[in-house]
C-alpha cells in the first residue's frame, strides 16, 4: 500500500487535518464527518487538550453500516485520558508500524471523537487530527 503524498522532496503523509474546540460535560460525541464511499480515513496523529478538568478522549469509527455515535455502533481506534491543563499527542502511525484507519465507507459511516468525564461541570477541550484519505 503506497504512502500518501509519496515521491521526492518534502513529503507530508497526513496532509489533511481537522481541528475543533468546545465544552463538554459528562459525555459528548463530536461528529468528524461522513467517511466517503469506497474510502477510509487513515489517521496519523491526534492532539488532545483538556483545559480545565479531567477528560477522556476516544477516537472512534462507526462499524460497517452504522451511522450513530454510540459505543455499541463504533470501534475504538485510540484513547487517552487527560488531567486538567494538559495535552497529549498520540502517534497512530509509528513510522509505519501501525495503520490506524476507519472502516471502509459505504455512504453511511462517520468517524467520531467521544469525550467523557466524571464531572458534569463544563470543561473546555481542543483537538487536532492529522489524517489522509485512502
Amino acid at each position: 500500500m503506497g504512502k500518501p503524498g509519496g515521491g521526492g522532496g518534502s513529503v507530508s503523509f497526513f496532509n489533511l487535518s481537522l481541528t475543533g474546540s468546545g465544552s463538554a460535560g459528562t459525555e459528548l460525541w463530536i461528529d468528524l464527518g461522513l467517511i466517503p464511499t469506497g474510502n477510509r480515513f487513515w489517521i496519523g496523529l491526534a492532539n488532545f487538550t483538556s483545559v480545565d478538568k479531567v477528560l477522556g478522549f476516544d477516537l472512534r469509527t462507526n462499524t460497517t453500516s452504522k451511522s450513530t455515535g454510540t459505543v455499541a455502533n463504533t470501534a475504538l481506534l485510540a484513547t487517552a485520558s487527560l488531567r486538567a491543563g494538559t495535552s497529549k499527542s498520540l502517534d497512530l502511525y509509528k513510522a509505519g508500524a501501525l495503520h490506524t484507519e476507519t472502516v471502509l465507507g459505504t455512504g453511511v459511516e462517520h468517524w467520531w471523537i467521544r469525550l467523557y468525564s466524571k464531572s458534569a461541570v463544563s470543561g473546555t477541550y481542543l483537538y487536532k487530527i492529522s489524517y489522509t484519505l485512502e
Partner: protein
Amino acid sequence: MAEVTPIFDKIITGSGSLATDLWIDLGAIPTGKRIFYGYATLVAEDKACQFELRSNLTGQSTGTTGTTELHDWCSANGGDSNDRDLYFYGNLALLSVTGTGTEHWWIHIKSKGATGVVDYIIRYQEY
C-alpha cells in the same frame, strides 16, 4: 513510492473496574503462535493504578504472579493515561510464550482504596 506494511495489525480494547487488584483475561494465546506486543494505552479514569502486561508461563492458564511472566509495567495517576511503546522501532521484541492451547495473556492492575475504572487498547500481532 515506498510501501507500508503495518506490523501490529490487531487491536484489543476493553475496560474494567477494581478496588485493589484485577486480572483482565485477554484470551487464549493461539496454539503455535506468540503474542508480539506493539503499543498499549492504559487509562486510569479516576484513581492511581499500576498496570502490568503479563502472559502465562508454558502449561499455565491462570492469572497469578506465580503462573505468569511480566512483560511491561507502568503507573498512571487518576484521570491520566499512559502510552507504552513496546516495539521501539524494532529495538524491542516483547513476546509471550508460544501457545499450546492453554496459555492466556493478561493485564494485571493494582491500586489502593475505592473502586475505580480502567480502560485499555493494545496493538499487537500473532507471531
